[in-house]
């Protein structure tokens, strides 16, 4: 009844859970912003109270990269943090009606029609890759990303983080405006 092939089990876990009577639809499709925002703020404060460190993602990528390449001095707990983000996200989507949903994730880019970009899959992948390289380069140069500068740095009242956040917000809105004009 679960499929006889163990590799499919991870994708059928919601079915398994419902047959076992485990409640899975605990989360709404989208937790309202006015609940998620303060929760995120409390996580930032809690993380500081434990580790005296910002809850930023760029640092986690940098340390994970070092750990994978076996560069001496890599901060191992940042790797655990990196893994934790994915794990927590998996738990969250599992508790929604949709559950784990194998898909491209970039339907707007790959599908055609009104408001979509209609790119072929390889072209879409190339665009996303280049965008991500630019994003990673910029985050490392700036010393933080949306979580690091945008929330943790601003919450520390860091002038550098406030400047970085206002710059990347403006640049992202401008870039999106251009993208929307072209499409």
């Amino acid at each position, binding site marked *: 009844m679960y499929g006889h092939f163990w590799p499919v089990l991870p994708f059928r876990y919601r079915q398994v859970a419902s047959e076992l009577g485990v409640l899975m639809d605990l989360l709404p499709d989208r937790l309202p912003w006015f609940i998620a925002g303060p929760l995120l703020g409390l*996580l930032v404060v809690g993380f500081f109270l434990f580790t005296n460190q*910002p809850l930023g993602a760029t640092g986690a*990528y940098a340390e994970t990269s070092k750990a994978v390449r076996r560069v001496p001095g890599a901060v191992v707990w940042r790797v655990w943090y990196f893994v*934790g983000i994915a794990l927590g996200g998996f738990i969250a989507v599992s508790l929604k009606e949709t559950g784990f949903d194998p898909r491209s*994730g970039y339907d707007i880019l790959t599908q055609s029609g009104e408001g979509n970009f209609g790119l072929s899959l390889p072209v879409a992948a190339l665009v996303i890759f280049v*965008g991500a390289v630019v994003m990673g380069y910029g985050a490392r140069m700036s010393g933080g990303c949306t979580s690091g500068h945008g929330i943790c740095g601003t919450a520390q009242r860091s002038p550098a983080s406030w400047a*970085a956040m206002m710059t990347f917000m403006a640049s992202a809105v401008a870039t999106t405006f251009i993208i929307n004009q072209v499409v």
Partner: protein
Amino acid sequence: MKSSTKFNIIGLLFGAGFGFVLGAANLHEYTTIHNMLSLEEFDVFGLMGLAIGTSLPLLAIFERAKVKTVLAGTLSLSRSKVQKHHVVGGAIFGIGWAVSGTCPAPALVMLASGAGLAAVTIAGLFVGLGLRDAQTSRAAGGAVTQGDGEHRTTVGVGN
């Protein structure tokens, strides 16, 4: 328990909490970020505003009270002066953010939610970070720029 083990557990737990909130609020969906940056939907701006609005005053109070953190001594916040690389890097980051429709942490949640192309995003992020690190180490012999949003190396602490 060893201090490094405690750090690992706290890192995993808070990472999971962070990823959970991102996933619960749908920040891992391309459309959420695209609609935000198209200024069609203000939820994410409100979310970030409330996150800052909650954490900024609490951190200020705890800083003034010289609160001892559990694993790493007295709470110390960093407030760097604005330098060119913060702003230029931010501008570059924003372009990539708009194109790939996700930022570094939500990209991980995106992949964990089943979005296959997020693997491309994550790979690109590693490449971009690596390019910047290679550039700075060529220029300054190993010194890497650190900002107030990144991991910081605190003196005398087991991290």
